[in-house]
C-alpha cells in the first residue's frame, strides 16, 4: 500500500510525519536538528530517500543537511554560499543601497531528473545550484545580474527568494519569485532571466504596475500545464496562462485576497487552494476562523473548506511554504500553522484533521508520496 511522508520544518527543528495511504494513523518522528530553524526540507522526485534540508540559526548561520535513507540519518553538506563576483548592492528598507549579504536558505528544489542536483533560493535574494548533492553551491548569477537587481528591496521577512518552479516539459525553463522584487523566468537553464510581472498591480509601490517591486508570497504550477501559473501576492491571487508573460486577477469572491500559502490539486490542474489571511499587520484568519478556500475552476469562484478546522478563536498564520499536496488517487492536502498544527485532508479538502497539534511554529510542509 502507498505511504505518505510529510516533512515539516519548524522554528525549533524538523519533524517527519508518516502514514499509510489511508492517512488516518500518523507516526511522528522528531525533533530532528532540535533548536535549529528548519526553513525547508524537500525530497528528490528521482530518489525519494534523498532529502535535502535547510538548517539555520541566528547564532551559527546556515548549515545544510542531506539524508540518503528517507530521513532516518542525516549528514551535513556544504554551507558556503558565495555570491558570484562583486556582489554589489540592492535597496535597503529606507531606499539606500545595501550590500548583498547571504543570510539563509529559504527554499530547496531538487532536480526533476537528477537526485544529486538541487536548487536553493536564498536571502539576500539569489539562486544557487548544487550538482554534487549539496557539497558545493554555485550561484546562477544571471538572475541578480540581469539589470534590476540594484533596485530590489526586501519585504518585511527579508529579501528572500522563496519559490522555485521547474518546468517538467522543458529542462531550460524555471520560474522563481522574490519578496519584494517579483517573479522571473529563465528559458536557458538559469543563464538569462526576465521579469514576468506584467498585469500585477501593487498599491504599496509608487508605480503600482511597475516591472519590479511586487511582493509575491508564493507561486504554484501543475506539472501537466507548466505554462499556467498561480500566484498569491501580498494582496491579490493571480493567474497566468502564458508562462508569466501576463497575469490576471482571480481573487473573485475570496473574503480577503491576502495570504501566503497556495497549491494545486495533484490531479485537477484547475483546482487550487489558498488560505486567506487578514492583513495589513494582523496576519491571522478572518474572524478567528481557519478556512482553506478551494476553486475548482482555476480561480474567481471559491468555496470555504471548514470541516475539521477551528471555526472560532483561531489566530494562527499559514506561511508561504507550509502547504503541500500528495499524489494519491484521492489527493491529500496538508498545511502547517504558526501555532504548531499540521492539518491534513485525505479527500481534497472536504474533511480536515490535525495530524499533530503542538509543534513549534511551522515554517514549511512538503509531502512525499511513496510506493
Amino acid at each position, binding site marked *: 500500500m502507498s505511504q505518505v511522508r510529510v516533512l515539516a520544518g519548524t522554528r525549533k527543528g524538523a519533524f517527519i510525519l508518516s502514514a499509510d495511504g489511508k492517512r488516518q494513523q500518523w507516526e511522528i518522528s522528531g525533533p530532528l536538528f*532540535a*533548536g*535549529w530553524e528548519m526553513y525547508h526540507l524537500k525530497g528528490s522526485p528521482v530518489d525519494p530517500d534523498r532529502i535535502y534540508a535547510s538548517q539555520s540559526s*541566528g*547564532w*551559527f*548561520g*546556515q*548549515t545544510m543537511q542531506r539524508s540518503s535513507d528517507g530521513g532516518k540519518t542525516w549528514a551535513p553538506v556544504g*554551507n558556503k554560499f558565495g555570491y558570484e563576483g562583486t556582489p554589489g548592492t540592492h535597496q535597503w528598507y529606507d531606499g539606500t543601497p545595501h550590500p548583498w549579504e547571504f543570510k539563509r536558505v529559504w527554499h530547496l528544489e531538487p532536480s526533476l531528473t537528477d537526485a544529486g542536483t538541487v536548487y536553493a533560493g536564498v536571502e539576500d535574494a539569489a539562486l544557487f545550484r548544487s550538482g554534487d548533492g549539496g557539497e558545493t553551491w554555485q550561484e546562477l548569477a544571471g538572475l541578480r545580474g540581469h539589470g534590476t537587481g540594484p533596485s530590489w528591496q526586501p519585504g518585511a521577512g527579508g529579501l528572500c527568494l522563496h519559490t522555485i518552479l521547474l518546468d517538467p516539459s522543458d529542462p531550460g525553463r524555471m520560474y522563481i519569485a522574490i519578496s519584494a522584487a517579483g517573479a522571473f523566468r529563465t528559458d536557458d537553464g538559469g543563464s538569462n532571466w526576465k521579469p514576468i510581472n506584467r498585469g500585477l498591480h501593487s498599491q504599496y509601490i509608487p508605480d503600482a504596475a511597475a516591472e519590479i517591486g511586487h511582493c509575491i508570497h508564493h507561486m504554484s504550477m501543475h506539472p501537466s500545464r507548466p505554462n499556467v501559473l498561480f500566484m498569491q501576492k501580498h494582496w491579490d491571487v493571480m493567474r497566468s496562462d502564458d508562462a508569466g508573460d501576463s497575469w490576471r486577477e482571480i481573487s473573485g469572491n475570496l473574503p480577503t485576497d491576502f495570504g501566503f500559502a497556495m497549491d494545486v490539486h495533484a490531479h485537477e490542474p484547475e483546482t487550487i487552494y489558498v488560505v486567506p489571511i487578514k492583513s495589513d499587520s494582523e496576519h491571522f484568519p478572518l474572524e478567528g476562523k481557519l478556512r482553506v478556500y478551494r476553486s475548482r475552476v482555476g480561480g474567481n469562484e471559491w468555496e470555504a473548506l471548514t470541516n475539521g478546522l477551528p471555526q472560532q478563536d483561531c489566530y494562527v498564520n499559514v506561511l508561504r511554504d507550509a502547504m503541500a499536496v500528495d499524489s494519491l488517487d484521492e489527493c491529500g492536502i496538508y498545511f502547517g500553522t504558526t501555532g504548531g498544527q499540521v492539518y491534513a485532508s485525505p479527500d481534497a479538502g472536504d474533511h480536515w484533521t490535525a495530524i499533530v497539534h503542538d509543534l513549534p511554529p511551522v515554517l514549511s510542509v512538503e509531502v512525499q508520496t511513496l510506493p
Partner: protein
Amino acid sequence: MIRVVLPAHLRTLSGTGAEVELEVQGRVTQGSVLDALEASYPMLCGTIRDHVTHRRRPFVRFFACQEDLSHDPPDALLPEEIASGAEPFLIIGAIAGG
C-alpha cells in the same frame, strides 16, 4: 593538546561531546585554534566565523580564563593556560533570542 568547549548546537552538528581536543602547530591563537577546529570538523566552517572574511559571527563569543577574548585580534596569542591545555577555550552562543 588544546581543549575547546563547543555550544550545544555545534556539538550536535559536529557529533562531538561538550569538549574536543585539538593539536595546534605553532602559535596558539584564536585563528590557529579555529583553523584546527574546522580542519577536524569541516561541518563547523561558517558557523563560528565567516567562510571568507573569518570575521566572528555576531552572536558568538570567545571566553578563556575568565576573560572575554571576543574582540582580541585573531592572531593574538591565547593565554598560556590554553596553550598548555590547563584551561579550555570556550566558544559561546550569546544569550539572546528565544
